[in-house]
């Protein structure tokens, strides 16, 4: 997935870029509306994350202006917490909004929800051996069988899929699966891995336990 992040706060932008890159997304960063226009002219994006207060204007005005010719879904990042501001963003054509400061897991979840609502895109499908995994739709297909995965299973499978053959530690998996404040132990990872194993049974995929180190998925 290719994202465009329009955010003038360099540190926040860097942190978001970091996190989205972890999920395997390519992210371009624009620090102003002018830079965003340049990016949009040069490339096509799957999703735009748009800050409201930018040095050369209001993100919502930009949104209202470009909505006519812009089909890319937009999530507004706003520090404006007023109810009317939030509703206003949706009225001006945003697909969703998220209030700063936000949880990366929530940002990720909202991006996923918006992309799924907009119909996802075929190029995001991941081939895992003989199986096809569509993280947007949350489906895993093998031949004629298709299973629908639940949110955490999708995310877990996504992490494994982006690191084929690599050993992933329990704490690495935990950070991707759970919000920072969830009171979970590493046992929870064992539960979810166990669940995912049952789901991918017969799909030609295997999750191995590497004692003392973590897990590894092989096709």
């Amino acid at each position, binding site marked *: 997935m290719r994202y465009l992040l329009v955010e003038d706060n360099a540190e926040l932008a860097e*942190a978001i870029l970091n996190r989205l890159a972890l999920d395997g997304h390519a992210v371009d960063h624009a620090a102003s509306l002018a830079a965003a226009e340049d990016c949009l002219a040069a490339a096509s994006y799957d999703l735009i994350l748009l800050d409201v207060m930018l040095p050369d204007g209001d993100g919502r005005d930009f949104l209202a202006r470009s909505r006519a010719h812009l089909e890319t879904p937009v999530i507004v990042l706003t520090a404006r917490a007023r109810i009317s501001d939030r509703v206003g963003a949706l009225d001006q054509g945003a697909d969703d909004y998220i209030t*700063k*400061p*936000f949880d990366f897991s929530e940002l990720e979840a909202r991006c996923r929800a918006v992309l799924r609502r907009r119909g996802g895109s075929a190029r995001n499908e991941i081939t895992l051996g003989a199986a096809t995994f569509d993280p947007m739709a949350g489906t895993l297909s093998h031949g004629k069988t298709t299973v629908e995965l639940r*949110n955490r299973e999708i995310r877990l499978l996504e992490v494994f899929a982006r690191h084929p053959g690599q050993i992933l530690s329990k704490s690495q998996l935990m950070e991707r699966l759970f919000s*920072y*404040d969830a009171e979970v132990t590493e046992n929870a990872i064992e539960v979810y891995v166990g669940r995912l194993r049952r789901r991918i049974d017969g799909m030609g995929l295997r999750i191995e336990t590497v004692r003392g180190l973590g897990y590894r998925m092989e096709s």
Partner: protein
Amino acid sequence: MTGSASIERRLTVLLAGVAALLSILSWGMVTGLARQAAERTQDNVLAASATAIAETLRSEQGEVRLELPYSAFSMLGAISEDRVFYRVATGEALLTGYADLPVPAISPPAQGRVVFDTGDYRGAQVRMASVMRQVLAGGAPVSVTVTVAQTRNGIRAIAGELSQLAAMLSVAFFVVAVTLSAVAARTSLRPLNEIAQAVSRRGPNDLRPLRRAAPAELAPLMTALNRLMERLGQSLRRSEDFIVEAAHRVRTPLATVRAQAEIALRSVEDETEKQRLRRMIRAVDESSRSAGQLLDHATVAYRAEDLARDLIDLADLAAQTADALAPTAAMKDIEIRLETVPATVRGDAVLLENALRNVLDNAIKYSAEDTTVTLRVRRPTDTEARIEVIDQGPGLGTGPVEQLTERFRRGQNTQGIVGSGLGLTIAEDVIRAHGGRLELGQGPDGRGACVTLVFLLA
């Protein structure tokens, strides 16, 4: 509208004072006039009587003679029961009558004219009329003075009766005038009272200008009042803008802190360090969430005063809210189950969405991973519609359930969960503003919590 400085009372007292003054003046005038009229009548009759006697004077064989006509005394008896005295004399020689009746000094040029005088005679005040006539007696003119006198008691009594009547009329006039002044004061102050009521009936945030017909005298007050409300509204809006701006300025750096801390959390290996970072993130969440809900609370209070009355289908509202919170629920693999029937209410869509979002957000927050939150819209009776939010969380605890909707009050089993304690307060304020109520209870099978927004259908 009572009190020592009440305009109404002052106006009434002033008008009553004027009425009292007028009553006393009119009484005095009537009394004076009555007395004057009585005295003038007496004078006229006395003059007529004296003249009538003087008419009978004639000379007979050099002697002055007269007759006392009956009519001269009967006319005096006609006006009162007073005693009558008379005296006819030439110079010092008494012809007839009471010799000691005082005689006014009448000089010859006054001949034919009646002269009046007042004096004391036999222990009473008397009014006297004298007339002088010259009679030729024995070839020489002789001056004859005729004096008729009458006591004044009867006249006084008549004047007194008239004065009493006038006093009664004055008192009656005074009573009527005071009543009318009270009515007039009240009536003329009614527009003022109406304006006062119109202002005091308003909610604390209703700053629309007053639009009502007022007497010209009150127009400056109305204008001043409207200007004041306009300025108040402006300063309210300014402070709201200021709060929003301040919240924005605080939240942007908080977002950076939180993002950086989350990145650090991934790269740090040490569990104590991780714990510290988690606490830091939690503090950021806590403060930004509180700020947000305080703003929401203020907005709710502001909008509730002047509620929009849109037609809203609760089923649509539930579906939209579920949709908006689905990603949040997905983070914990929580399923939001919708069980709705159409139910249309009138209300403020923005506020109701906010209220339901707060309740649903609470339910998700306090639910365990991998559970279900049910969002149900029911119409159990023709007069009631309910939105029930049922979770499978720890329930609302053992503390008093009513206290949970108090500001900043959080339940007894909220340890470890970020919250400001305003969510249910906001929801309750909104539903109350819509004439409904918020019910807190247990889930249907005794597990979890059930928060219900109850709407009364018209």
